[in-house]
């Protein structure tokens, strides 16, 4: 029943984002319209894939760092990606892929630094240090980013600022294909870690007594969730709240078992972002809101409402 509802919601979000838009396309011509095929359809699919990836990455990281407030971007990736993207803009790097590639490299650099910091205490990956290191690296990268943006001229500054708030206007069939080929690998790694992730909620010691290979699981989950987030941020910028709110909504309905939680977070995250992107491009048409603004505007009130149930 709840899976049916979720599937319908997800499908509805996809259909709406293809049907609605600033340009009026009559329903009868929907299937023949260039706007639909070349703009709306890839954009809807990319929104869905990115939202789903962020939902799954958030759910995995929350279990890993044992903190329900963890968000995929809390671990420094947004700072690194932002720095990479802003550098690409400031240096006028040419070509349509310069920005996503620079953002991806920035995210990977942050990932590597945070991972290294997490191992600072020895051979064991410490989730608390991952969290602290992520916040610190993110803040450091954001400081450099702000310094660069403050030296840029007005048009560049606007581009950089908009990118930092996330947006899917760069969507193309190429980017859809890229994410559709890339994301299944880390998604499968996270899904395969479902049971150990359930156990980690009891703490590392208890998890190992119940048969989890804790060190392996921590590394796999951190790397897979971060690689998902890095790809998401490369194609769509920093889209907040999907990775924080969606796992919690999914938990309230599906419980804490990751085998059902992760797929639910994928569908829910996809639906939320597709829906948010539809709003972002229609409410102030012909201009566009950064989709991160919309996810925050929807996500925060929903989250506040859910917190009431959470604290029972």
């Amino acid at each position, binding site marked *: 029943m709840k899976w049916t509802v979720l599937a319908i919601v997800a499908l509805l979000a996809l259909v709406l984002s293809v049907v609605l838009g600033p340009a009026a396309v009559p329903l009868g011509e929907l299937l023949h319209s260039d706007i639909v095929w070349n703009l709306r359809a890839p954009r809807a699919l990319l929104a869905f894939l990115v939202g789903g990836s962020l939902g799954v990455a958030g759910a995995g990281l929350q*279990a890993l760092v*044992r903190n*329900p407030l963890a968000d995929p971007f809390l671990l420094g990736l947004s700072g690194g990606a932002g720095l990479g993207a802003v550098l690409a803009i400031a240096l006028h790097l040419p070509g349509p892929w310069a920005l996503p590639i620079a953002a991806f490299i920035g995210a990977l650099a942050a990932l590597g630094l945070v991972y290294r910091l997490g191992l600072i205490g020895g051979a064991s990956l410490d989730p608390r240090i991952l969290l602290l290191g992520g916040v610190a690296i993110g803040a450091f990268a954001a400081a450099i980013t702000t310094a660069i943006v403050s030296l840029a001229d007005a048009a560049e500054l606007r581009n950089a600022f908009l990118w930092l708030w996330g947006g899917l206007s760069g969507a193309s069939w190429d980017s859809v294909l890229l994410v559709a080929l890339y994301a299944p690998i880390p998604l499968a790694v996270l899904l*395969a870690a479902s*049971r150990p992730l*359930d*156990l980690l*909620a*009891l*703490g590392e*010691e*208890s998890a*190992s*007594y*119940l*048969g*989890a*290979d*804790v060190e392996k699981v921590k590394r796999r989950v951190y790397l897979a969730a971060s690689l998902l987030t890095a790809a998401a941020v490369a194609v769509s910028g920093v889209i907040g709240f999907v990775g924080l709110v969606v796992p919690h909504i999914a*938990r309230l309905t599906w*419980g*804490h*078992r990751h085998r059902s939680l992760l797929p639910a977070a994928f569908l829910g995250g996809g639906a939320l972002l597709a829906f948010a992107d539809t709003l972002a491009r229609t409410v102030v048409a012909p201009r566009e809101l950064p989709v991160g603004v919309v996810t925050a505007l929807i996500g925060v009130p929903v989250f506040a409402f859910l917190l009431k149930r959470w604290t*029972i």
Partner: protein
Amino acid sequence: MTAPLLRLDGVRYRYPGATQDALQGVSLAIAPRQFHAVLGPNGSGKTTLVRIALGGLMPLVGRAEVIGIPASQWARQDLARVVGVVPQREDNLFPQRVRETVLLGRYPHLSLWGRERAADHDAVNRALAACDALHLADRWLWTLSGGEYQRIRVARALAQEPKLLILDEPGISLDLKHEMGLFELVLGLVHEQGLGVLMITHDLNLAARFADSLLLLEGGRPVAAGAPNDVLTQETVEKVFSWPVAMQTVDGRPQMVPLRQPKESRA
């Protein structure tokens, strides 16, 4: 002769950077249907002993074996099918119901993608029944009393269908009824299911009443080992716990009563 469930042989361990051994010369062997208790004051090495027994730490000298195989060589999942542990502390990150948390005990028996089978749910029910907790199955964990929660944690370890059960200070913060109830439950499992039990505790009297064999540690060294009547003598207890005691006998087992020691008479 079959190998004992757990066997420690002349184990010495020192934490990296420490100036003293955490354990030295510790030996122990637990067979099925045996209830062993490890006793000692705080910092005597009890928890280190559990970590060594489960392969979390490697002894610098000596051996630690589970069913004849060095503890550190076991894959965690295989070990969890043989040894169930009730750790001293744990906090559950997310709200969970009793049946869900006991089902976690079945995880070592599941394949990577496999679902829980009817046999797994049967094992959960048996574990809950053995702990007299079937009626709690649909409750949220946070609504349980301390004693009920401990029983659920024992049930989760039983759902693993282990041969050896290790409990680390299980009676801590329990009132009399729940503490006695828990010890009776564990002894019942030894008698009825043939489990071997290793219990870490600093409650000398309960250990002496329930366990077949005691190991008394002081500063990581074994002070005495064997049947309760041989281990818990007035002299040994006073020396290890640095407090005067009187010894009595209940049900044929030694019981210790700490004596008053007013401030002015203390040396």
